[in-house]
């Protein structure tokens, strides 16, 4: 049995290891001529030492008692890593030549990101077929724990348990994908449509129009986004009523407009760089119309940075919707939504320290939160990779 280390021992071990590696490595390297050991910097030695000691600590924690969440996290990371690797291997051997090449140049993280996004998309699209129950269906057994084991307070009918009023959490998670992700996607598309068209217009025409648009955008950006969104939601519902569906529509429009300010800034900046190129001047001198200039000359060249921004923006919109729902003015019940689920089940997190059923109880709000986190991470993996490609950085 490996005992896990206290913080004092841990840090002492790291420093000792680093020193040993740095000075010892020099001696060994000089004697044997291994360049990597000989030329190792002090910071490099510290890094290696930290890595080894932390790895030991992790293994000790994993095989020791308790630390349930840590074990789950390890399972998650390892499992997703394997899934990403398998998916990457699949992509490398199946498909056309172009996709094979794409997968060869792609890191495992990006492959995992793509796999997860595909999975989320499939779940969202086929939610009606996948979900075992309806999202608003109420069962008599409320507060069932996840795991499906009757001895632990679960039920085989409800694998992930039920919430306080007896709705099946698995079904609500699946429908939540449809509602939350779907609405976030529509909102982001709208934000990009507004932001890109105005941004390119400002870049192409310039002058007064550019000034007016840019200052309006500055004004909108100067107000904290979440508070501004709350304010606008209140005004909108007060003026136009809060019928079902209307609130969601307001939310989409408001978040889209507020988020389009960031898109505007980016697309204007990217557009400015393209507008000064000679090929743009050639097209202008040819007498081309504004629409051709924007869609045929600027847009294809701005595609890569804007696509990367789309991924990031999508995450932010998604989080904004979740926080609005968490505050109670986003997606309205009985529609399932991850933000609302986190809010409704949040008090269960306090049960985590209790033995045996504690972690299971605490996992109730964490499942919806995890769904949000996982998608955010997946999108960012893909975005990082695309940015890397677009910037032309090579190893």
């Amino acid at each position: 049995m490996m005992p896990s280390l206290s913080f004092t021992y841990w840090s002492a071990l790291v420093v000792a290891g680093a020193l040993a590696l740095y000075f010892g490595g020099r001696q060994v390297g000089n004697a044997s001529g291994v360049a990597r050991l000989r030329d190792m910097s002090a910071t490099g030695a510290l890094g290696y030492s930290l890595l080894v000691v932390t790895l030991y600590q992790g293994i000790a924690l994993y095989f020791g008692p308790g630390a349930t969440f840590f074990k789950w996290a390890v399972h998650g990371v390892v499992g997703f890593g394997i899934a990403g690797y398998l998916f990457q291997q699949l992509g490398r051997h199946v498909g056309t030549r172009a996709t094979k090449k794409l997968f060869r140049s792609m890191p495992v993280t990006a492959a995992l990101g793509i796999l997860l996004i595909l999975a989320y998309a499939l779940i969202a699209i086929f939610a009606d077929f996948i979900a075992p129950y309806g999202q608003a269906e109420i069962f008599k057994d409320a507060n069932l724990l996840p795991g499906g084991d009757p001895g632990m307070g679960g039920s085989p009918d409800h694998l992930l348990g039920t919430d306080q009023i007896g709705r099946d959490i698995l079904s609500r998670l699946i429908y939540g994908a449809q509602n939350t992700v779907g609405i976030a996607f529509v909102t982001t598309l709208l934000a990009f449509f507004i932001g890109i068209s105005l941004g390119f217009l400002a870049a192409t025409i310039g002058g007064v129009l550019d000034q007016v648009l840019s200052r309006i955008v500055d004004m909108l950006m100067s107000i904290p986004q979440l508070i501004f969104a709350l304010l606008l939601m209140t005004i909108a519902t007060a003026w136009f009523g809060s019928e079902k569906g209307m609130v969601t529509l307001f939310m989409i429009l408001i978040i889209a407009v507020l988020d389009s300010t960031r898109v505007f800034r980016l697309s204007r900046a990217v557009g400015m760089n393209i507008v000064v190129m000679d090929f743009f001047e050639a097209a202008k001198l040819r007498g081309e119309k504004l629409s051709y200039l924007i869609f045929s000359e600027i847009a294809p060249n701005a595609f890569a940075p804007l696509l990367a921004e789309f991924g990031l923006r999508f995450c932010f919109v998604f989080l904004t919707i979740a926080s609005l729902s968490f505050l109670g003015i986003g997606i309205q019940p009985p529609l399932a939504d991850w933000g609302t689920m986190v809010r409704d089940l949040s008090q269960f997190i306090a049960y985590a320290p209790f033995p045996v059923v504690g972690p299971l109880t605490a996992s109730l709000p964490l499942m919806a939160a995890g769904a949000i986190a996982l998608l955010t991470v997946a999108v960012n993996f893909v975005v990082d990779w695309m940015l890397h490609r677009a910037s032309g950085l090579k190893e």
Partner: protein
Amino acid sequence: MSATEPLVKISNLEIDGIADETRTRIINNVSLELNRGEVMGLIGESGAGKSTLGLAAMGFTRDGCEIVGGNIMFDGIDLVTATPDVKRQLLGKRIAYVAQSAAASFNPAHKIINQHAEAPLCHGVSSRTEAEADAIDLYERLRLPNPDEIGFRYPHQVSGGQLQRAMTAMAMSCRPDLIIFDEPTTALDVTTQIEVLVAIREIVEQFQTAAIYITHDLAVVAQMADRVKVLLRGDEVEEADTRTMLDAPREDYTKSLWAVRSFQRPQKPLAKKGAVPVISLRNVTAAYGSNDPVVRDVSFDIHEGRTVAVVGESGSGKSTTARCITGLLPPMTGEIAFQNQVLPADYRKRSVHQLRQVQMIYQMADTALNPRKRIGEIIGRPVEFYLGLKGAEKRRRVEELLELIEMDPKEYINRLPSELSGGQKQRIGIARALAAEPKFIICDEVTSALDQLVAEGILKLLTRLQEEMKLSYMLITHDLSTVRAIADEVVVMKDGLIVEAGPKDEMFTPPHHAYTDLLLSSVPEMNPDWLDELLAQRGAENLGDAAVSKM
């Protein structure tokens, strides 16, 4: 270490470049020996590996490059296997590097002299006050104006040629044994170039420094180098001392390089009196914003089938004149007429027919072609836009145009610009201009970014097209050999004014206007004694920008 041993000895060097899953050989089995105090010129087209070889002499490779074979001995130290510590001791102190663009290589946030003192301080060669005093001494030797004061300016407050000399001074700061000059004058005007050349040559001689001088300009290398090595796609073609190389090159490739400058089209007779010029500028004065005019009272005519070369240094207003003709910059006063019809000043007010008659070919083919469009689309768009051709007819016309510029339609029509070489891109730029079927084309420094062999091909193509289609060209250039090759008339501009104008043959025979004379005399010739003769004849104070400022 005996004095007879060479300072640098590179033997059987092989360097690979790794990009996008493929390995390509950049340097293939090249050997090089350089003695103390000797200057070696490296010559070749772009992609010949001359910069890579130059950097390898410092034991350095760019990202994505890897030394796979051979060794590099610098004064008995093998730089391939040397530790980073050893290399750090050498670089900056015993080996220095002067980059092509001094403006991009200086840190804009620090004063020049502070950057100069960095290397001596870092290597413990001298104290700060000593380093500064030495810097001022070097500035004086390099004939920089106000040597006591110039180092305390920021890089943007100093002109390009002066900055290049300041950079040479910086490389000298630790009195290195070896300096690598990587195309130090390529981006400069001729009159500025000559000053930098004189300065570099003197200082290298004074301190007995060995140097590797990388350039694609043969006439420059003839002045600078003791020995010349010619490279072609990573292979060594031949090496000899400069005079032997110039007088009796052995290899065919070297001979073809030497012959480039001989291309010359005879001047056409002047247009008949009373003939209607294709384009005429009448007293054009133009300015950016509310600043002082950059073009002042400029008038000249361009006749059918003729080439008018507009010559001048950067900032002389030649490109601004072109912007006035295209309508991008409406002139303050004066007008531009096409076949005696006055064109609207702003391009947005011109009709499609008027826009079509004036086309432009750009200097940088990289930025002149939309990188996301295929060649077929790039050429096809003006065909469709101006002639209204669609579908198969459009494609046929695009294929005709590609054949016209001597490129195989089947092979190139579906390529992206990034899949073409520099010269091919420039040809596509020409095809795009021709697609509009214009009467008049502005060629803005079309050959200055190209290698000499490729540039010659472009000039021949332009000449042939002019014969076939009765085109008129306005040729903007600072390279007088281009003017000599294809121009009929020459307009010399300085500070926005026309200094001299007339038929080519007259311009190249004395007597000249003083400025034209200076421009002509500053163009390096293939004669290795040219710079010495010029210095003896005029003195160092009457060359280049120093002479311009006296006018």
